[in-house]
């Protein structure tokens, strides 16, 4: 979700195989650089494969260009990487979130084939995407500051995951602003 000169990304931390919970502290959002986060939902093995792949691609980019990648360029990179596997896709749906060089928030969600959907306000993906959508739609306001943004994002995450048996077991919120990244862990219902 975007705010005024800041942007937040949040996810739950449950890893499950259908109804069995395997782990409760699994990271789904990865810091690509100081102003860019990649969130990956879906099949966890593909999440890990893609994270490693993008870490490598970004290192190469940084080495060649001598600067960090911008969020928009990275989103397009993610999209083309996913589309390369059009007929045997990665089963993950990524969210790219970051601040561009003018500190304007950039938010983008994709489906598993890489269809970009850039939104100015918020993007939701995962098993409880509809619940998140309804909650975000109701509580989102334009130009929230960091504290308000954190409140809204953490409350919506908790609301939606409370109604989804496949999500939960704690949440993590990262807020990116020009001052830096703040990370907070939320204690949700432990089930």
């Amino acid at each position, binding site marked *: 979700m975007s705010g005024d000169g800041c942007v937040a990304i949040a996810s739950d931390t449950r890893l499950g195989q259908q109804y069995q919970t395997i782990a409760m502290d699994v990271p789904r959002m990865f810091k690509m650089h100081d102003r860019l986060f990649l969130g990956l939902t879906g099949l966890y093995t593909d999440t890990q494969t893609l994270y490693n792949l993008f870490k490598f691609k970004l290192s190469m980019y940084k080495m060649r260009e001598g600067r960090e990648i911008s969020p928009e360029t990275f989103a397009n990179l993610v999209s083309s990487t996913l589309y390369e596997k059009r007929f045997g896709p990665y089963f993950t749906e990524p969210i790219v979130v970051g601040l561009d060089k003018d500190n304007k928030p950039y938010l983008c969600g994709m489906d598993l084939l890489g269809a970009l959907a850039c939104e100015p306000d918020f993007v939701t993906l995962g098993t409880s995407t509809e619940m998140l959508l309804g*909650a975000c739609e109701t509580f989102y306001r334009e130009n929230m500051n960091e504290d308000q943004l954190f409140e809204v994002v953490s409350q919506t995450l908790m*609301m939606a995951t409370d109604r989804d048996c496949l999500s939960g077991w704690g949440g993590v919120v990262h807020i990116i602003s020009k001052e830096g990244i703040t990370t907070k862990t939320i204690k949700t219902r432990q089930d």
Partner: protein
Amino acid sequence: MMDFGTPVLEPGSANGTKQVPQFNPYQDNGGTVASIAGDDYVIVAADTRFTLGYSIPTRKISRVLKINDKVMLGTAGMQADTCALHKVISTRMRMYEHDNNKRMTFNAVSQMLSTVLYYKRFFPYYTFNIVAGLDDKGEGWVCGYDAIGSFEQRKIVCNGAGTKLMQPVFDNQVDWAQSWDGAGKPNLSLEQATDLMKDAFTSAAEREITVGDTLQIYKITKDGIQLEEFELKKD
């Protein structure tokens, strides 16, 4: 528009000679109903959009049935089954009043709906109901049902297409479900509940194609039932 579903192969048609189309008796006409109950009021809200696939045959259907001055029934799902169900319920309500010489109470209506739905256990009404009303003491309650009559009495219920989008919002704002210790739980007034309902439906109308057009909000209090209509997005 009749929905014939996918063709079913008859036995002995392995060489592909005969294919019999099967008639699908159900349709999903979309819509959402929701209700919030307070200490001395209940509000029932339903959108008025009738969808069929991606088309909108009409923007103005009523999903709510007034049973009596204290109880209302809201139904989402298939409109034909809704009409049939409403007819059955209002007939049975009149019979009750003739037989017993008194109005049906909220508890009586909720139990009756459950049995009526369960009578059709093996060919159900494709309907998602809520019964909302004031009980004998004047306190507001709502019952939410599934298609075959299983119900639970609560203070807030949503049913229908927009449930997934709206239920978490109600959990948070009415039940105060995400607060650490429950302190500061609000006792919503009629106006606050109505505003919350409008907000929730507006959000649902943004993201759910079958929700939109107009929102009919019925407010049941000891003074009777008032209707407020609120415009939602028409796209």
